[in-house]
């Protein structure tokens, strides 16, 4: 199986844990840039290409090439270019419909999908940013969030042609946070750069990346996505 991973700084955790994919005999091509910079790629024929200087440098560091052909891959995974919305049970269906429309129109993942959509009919998985691992979060007064699962279902509505995959359940501290251990020693997208600072609770580490790979393979093996080739060697994987 051959997977293309597109995204932002959250791809770093997946990249550092890429041995998990290797052990499963899955080929991976990373194509990522920090923040929303990947949205600056240009669609040219059947490929997306980084054409300006900084972006070119960033994607070359992750993929080795300046362009990627989505249709060359069995599965396309978009990581970190959208968020699981902070929704509370008090919001009406009208409010939620409006938010879904906003994510569908303006999120980075949706914008990238609009670029690659005409190039391929391959299956796409959208993976939102992990929840923060902030040990002392500040919520508005009387904050009563919907469950992570319910909020993920709302996000799925914004991506009707893709499969939205949330973070593995065992990585969740509660409905709003990732367990703090997963954010220690989190890498940056640039492998030569220092680790993320200890005060950064938004990026996750290799252990988190490993858990995510396993979760993605579980999705593929369960038939949760219609990829062309779903060969994943789980016996070799950890």
């Amino acid at each position, binding site marked *: 199986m051959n997977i293309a991973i597109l995204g932002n700084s959250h791809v770093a955790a997946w990249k550092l844990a890429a041995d998990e994919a290797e052990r499963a005999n899955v080929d991976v091509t990373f194509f990522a840039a920090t923040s929303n910079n990947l949205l600056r790629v240009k669609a040219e024929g059947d490929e997306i290409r980084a054409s300006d200087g900084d972006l070119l440098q960033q994607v070359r560091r992750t993929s080795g090439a300046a362009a990627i052909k989505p249709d060359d891959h069995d599965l396309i995974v978009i990581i970190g270019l959208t968020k699981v919305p902070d929704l509370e049970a008090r919001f009406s269906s009208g409010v939620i419909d409006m938010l879904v429309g906003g994510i569908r129109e303006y999120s980075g993942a949706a914008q990238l999908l609009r670029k690659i959509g005409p190039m391929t009919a391959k299956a796409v998985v959208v993976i939102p940013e992990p929840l923060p691992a902030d040990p002392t979060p500040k919520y*508005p007064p009387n904050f009563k969030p919907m469950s992570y699962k319910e909020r993920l279902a709302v996000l799925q509505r914004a991506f009707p042609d893709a499969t939205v995959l949330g973070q593995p359940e065992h990585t969740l501290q509660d409905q709003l946070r990732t367990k703090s251990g997963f954010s220690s020693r989190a890498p940056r997208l640039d492998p030569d750069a220092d680790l993320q600072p200890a005060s950064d609770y938004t990026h996750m580490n290799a252990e988190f990346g490993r858990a995510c790979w396993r979760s993605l393979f579980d999705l593929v093996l369960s038939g949760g996505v219609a990829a062309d080739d779903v060969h994943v060697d789980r016996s070799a994987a950890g």
Partner: protein
Amino acid sequence: MPNPYKNQPPKAFWATGVAATHFLDISELWTPKWPITKADRIVTFGSCFAQHFAGALRSNRYGWTSFEPATENMSPHIAKKFSYDVFSARTGNIYTSSLLRQWASWATGEAPPSEVWYDGKRAYDPFRPRIEPNGFATADEMMASRECAIEAFRHCMADCDLFVFTLGLTESWFNSAEGFEYPMCPGTIAGKFDPDLHRFRNQSFAEIRDNLAETITLIRSLNPDVRCLFTVSPVPLTATATQDHVLVATTRSKSVLRAVAAEISDNPMIDYFPSYELITAPPFRGSFFEPNQREVNPHGVAHVMRTFFGAVGSEEEAPRAMEVDTDLVCEEELLTAFGR
């Protein structure tokens, strides 16, 4: 013994306080009874004009608080469309003191009415007819949303340091069978008008004063140390349901509200802020109104808020130029559509 005028300050005399001064330099129009600081948790409700207080408090980093906030995923445009963070709970406009008392009663245990309005299959809240631009999917969803607003309003009453209310109207519409009040005449924004059920009342001084006093008692039952700041909206009526000319009706309405505000604020924990005077008084020559002589222009709003911040804080907090949001959520303005 000198007569009492002898030792009065210049502001006490029209000649020195007003006539000899450029209208933008008229000062000392308000001296707060107590400090209002950035540490205070402030909630705001009332007519359209109250929204300026919320916006200005927020942008000057005072502790304006919404107990029913938008989510961070919501753009400011969508938040406003759904009336989030317009007032400190999603009550919609509260134009009268009786409506304020009604919300306070619901928040302290009185059961709200079960009335639902429909337009096709969409459900509308008679007490917040514009809270959702396209209504609610079901009556249950509408009721659940109203319960949230009531709970948030209760938190506002119980957990604020300063409760700010802008009195807007004396004209009101009631359900004659059950006695409750609607914020807007049924059949204008939503619902259907029934002449046998829906009764107009232009409230008296005593009614308004008593409802305001009862509201304060209810708030104090949850929050004994609360301070209240009342103000009167300078915005004239969009339309009157009386037989009077709208200008005469406006003067009647604002005069009564202003008189109530004066009487009710004769209390150490209650203050009156002169928004009304700052816009409508003769020295300002109507220059703070838009050409329709009704809407307050951004200069007027900035003038009011500068006076407020100048009195409660330092000069740095009272900028000469303020960004003023002129896009308010105003149900009453929709009555313009019924004018011929």
